[in-house]
C-alpha cells in the first residue's frame, strides 16, 4: 500500500452476466498500460462470485494491480460502486461492467475527455448491433430523458464511463440509479460528454431477455422519471392524477344527480359506485401528494438543492499580491 497513488482506478462491479474476469482484465489493462497511465483495478463482488474472482487473486499475487472487495449478497450495485469509489486511490475513475460492452480502446478515449476537462465521459455503443426490442427500449428511454440531456446523450445506460471521483461523491446515488449515473451527474450540473465506441465482438450476439427483465427496467425508468421531475414537487404529480380522477368522479355524480332529479332511482346504479370510487381514489392521491410536500418542506433546510460552479470559498477577486 506504500506505492504512490495511481492515475486511474478501474472499478468493476461483478453483479450479473459473469464472464471470465481474467480475460476482461487482460483485455482492458493492455491499452491502459500502453497509454502510459498508472492504474489499479478494483473488483467489487459478492461471495457468490468467488469462482470468478479467485483467479484474479492469483493475478494480484503475481503483482498485477488488482484489488478485490467483497460485500454481502443483496448489497445493491449502487452501493458496490460507492464502496469501490471510497477505496479508489486514483483521481480519475473508470467504471466497467463485468462483461464485454465496448472495445477496450474506449477507455483511453474516455480518459482523454476527462483529462481535457469533462467531469464524466460515457461510451456510446455505436454502431449498435442489438435486437430490435433492446434498441426500441433504448430509444424510448432517451425520448423520456431528452429534456435533461438536451438530446446530447445517446446511451446513458452504458456502463463504460470515465469520471472524476468527485462526481460519485456529490451525485446523490441510491437504489438502482447507478445505472443512470451520467444522467444524474448532468442534472447536478457536471459536464458530461460521450464518446462513440465500437461494440465488443463478445457482446454482439443480439439478446432478448425475459419479460421480467424488461419489467424491472420499466420500473427503474418510471422511478427515475419521478425522481428527476417531481421529487421537489410531489403534489404536482399526485395532484394531477388526483384531480383528474376526482374530476371524472364528480362529473359522473353530477350526471347521476340530474337523473335523480328527473325521477330515476339511484340506489341500484353501479355507476354511483364507480363515481364514489373515483372520488375516493382522487382524494387519496392528493393526500399522498400533500404528505410528499410535507416531507420536502420539512427537509428543505437540510440540503442545498443547487450546486455552485465556482466554490464560494474561493475569493471573488485574487488576493492582493
Amino acid at each position, binding site marked *: 500500500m506504500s506505492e504512490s497513488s495511481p492515475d486511474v482506478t478501474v472499478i468493476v462491479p461483478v453483479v450479473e452476466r459473469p464472464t471470465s474476469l481474467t480475460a476482461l482484465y487482460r483485455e482492458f489493462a493492455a491499452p491502459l498500460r500502453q497509454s502510459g497511465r498508472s492504474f489499479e483495478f478494483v473488483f467489487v463482488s459478492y461471495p457468490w462470485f468467488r469462482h470468478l474472482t479467485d483467479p484474479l487473486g492469483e493475478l494480484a499475487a503475481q503483482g498485477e494491480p488488482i484489488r478485490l472487495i467483497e460485500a454481502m449478497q443483496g448489497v445493491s450495485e449502487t452501493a458496490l460502486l460507492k464502496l469501490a469509489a471510497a477505496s479508489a486511490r486514483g483521481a480519475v475513475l473508470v467504471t466497467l461492467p463485468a462483461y464485454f460492452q465496448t472495445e477496450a480502446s474506449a477507455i483511453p478515449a474516455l480518459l482523454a475527455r476527462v483529462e481535457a476537462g469533462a467531469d464524466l465521459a460515457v461510451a456510446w455503443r455505436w454502431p449498435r448491433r442489438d435486437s430490435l426490442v433492446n434498441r426500441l427500449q433504448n430509444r424510448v428511454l432517451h425520448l423520456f430523458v431528452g429534456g435533461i440531456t438536451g438530446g446530447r446523450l445517446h446511451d446513458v445506460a452504458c456502463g463504460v464511463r470515465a469520471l472524476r471521483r468527485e462526481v460519485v461523491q456529490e451525485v446523490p446515488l441510491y437504489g438502482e440509479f447507478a445505472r443512470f449515473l451520467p444522467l444524474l451527474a448532468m442534472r447536478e*450540473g457536471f459536464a458530461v460528454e460521450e464518446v462513440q465506441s465500437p461494440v465488443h465482438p463478445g457482446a454482439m450476439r443480439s439478446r432478448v431477455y425475459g419479460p421480467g427483465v424488461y419489467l424491472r427496467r420499466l420500473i427503474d425508468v418510471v422511478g427515475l422519471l419521478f425522481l428527476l421531475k417531481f421529487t421537489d414537487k410531489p403534489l404536482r404529480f399526485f395532484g394531477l392524477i388526483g384531480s383528474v380522477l376526482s374530476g371524472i368522479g364528480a362529473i359522473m355524480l353530477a350526471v347521476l344527480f340530474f337523473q335523480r332529479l328527473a325521477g330515476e332511482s339511484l340506489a341500484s346504479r353501479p355507476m354511483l359506485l364507480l363515481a364514489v370510487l373515483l372520488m375516493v381514489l382522487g382524494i387519496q392521491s392528493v393526500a399522498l401528494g400533500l404528505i410528499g410536500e410535507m416531507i420536502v418542506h420539512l427537509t428543505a433546510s437540510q440540503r442545498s438543492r443547487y450546486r455552485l460552479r465556482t466554490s464560494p470559498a474561493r475569493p471573488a477577486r485574487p488576493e492582493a499580491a
Partner: protein
Amino acid sequence: MPDPSGVTRPHLSVIVPVFNEEENVPLLVAAVREALGDGDSWELLLVDDGSTDRSAAEAAAAAAADPRVRPVELARNYGQTLAMQAGFDQARGDVVVSMDGDLQNDPSDIPRLVATLESGYDLVAGYRERRQDKLVTRKIPSWVANRIILAVTGVRIRDNGCSLKAYRRAALERMHLYSDMHRFLPAFAAATAGARITEIPVRHHPRRFGQSKYGLSRIFKLLADLLTLTMIAWFRERPLALFSIGAATAFALGLAFLGWSAVAMQRFEQASATGYVLPAATLLWLLLACYLLMLGLIGEVALRRAREAKPELLPIAVERA
C-alpha cells in the same frame, strides 16, 4: 461576526439572479453603483443561473473591476427560485434586496425599500405602479395569479411577481425556497418565518435587451403550490389534525350514504345484487376516512423525525418599544 477574509462585512446585499442577460449585466452593475454610492456598505451578488451566453464572463469582469461585486455561478440552470436561494445563502449583509437582472426594476428604489424595512418590517415588497409589459401575455395572467394568491393565502400583496424586495436576514434564515415558491415569496415568508410584511410602490421600465423569461404561468402548478403553502402552517405543527378534518368529512359522507342505503333498503326490500351499490359506496367513504387518518399519523412521524434531525428556529418576534 467578522468576515474571515478580514474585509468588513457589508450592511446591504443586493441579489440579482441572471439568466442570459449579457447586455444587461454591465448596465445593471453601473445602475446599482450609481444608486448605492461609493461606500463599502453594500455588495452586489450576481447569481448566474447556468446562462448559455456571456453573462457569467460579464459578471466576472464586473467583479474584477469592482470588489463589491461578487459573482455566484450555479452549475446549471436551476430556475429563479433556487438562484435566489443561492444568493440568499451567499449574502453577508443584515439587509438583503433581491431584484431582476433585466433592468426592468430600478436600483434607485433600493434606498427607499431599505428605509421602509428598517422602520420595522422583515420583508418589504415592491409593487409596479405603472407596469411596462404586454397586457395579454403578462399583465392579465399576473392579475389573475395575484387574485388567486390573495384569496388563498390572505397575505395582502398586490404584486407578487415583482422581484424587487427587501428582507431582513432573520427572515431569510427561517425560509428555504424550493420548487417555484419565489412566485409568492411574501406569503411563504409569512407562513414559514412569521415575517412582518409591507409593500411600497416602485418604478418599472420596459425591457431593453434580451427576452422575457416568463410566459403565461400555468395555473395548475400555481394552484398545487398554493395548496402546499396553505398546508404549511398545519404541516409544521399538527399534520394529524389536518388529515383528521379530511377523515371526518369522509366519515360524515359515509354516514350519509349509510342512512341513504338504510332508507333505500326499507323502501325496496332488495335482495338482488344491484341493491348493494349504496352499502358498497358507504364502505368506500369509511375506507377513505381510515386511510386519511393513517396518512396523518405518517405525517406526524415525518414531522417528528425532521425536528429531531434539525430543531426549527423560533418565528420572528419583536418586543415593541
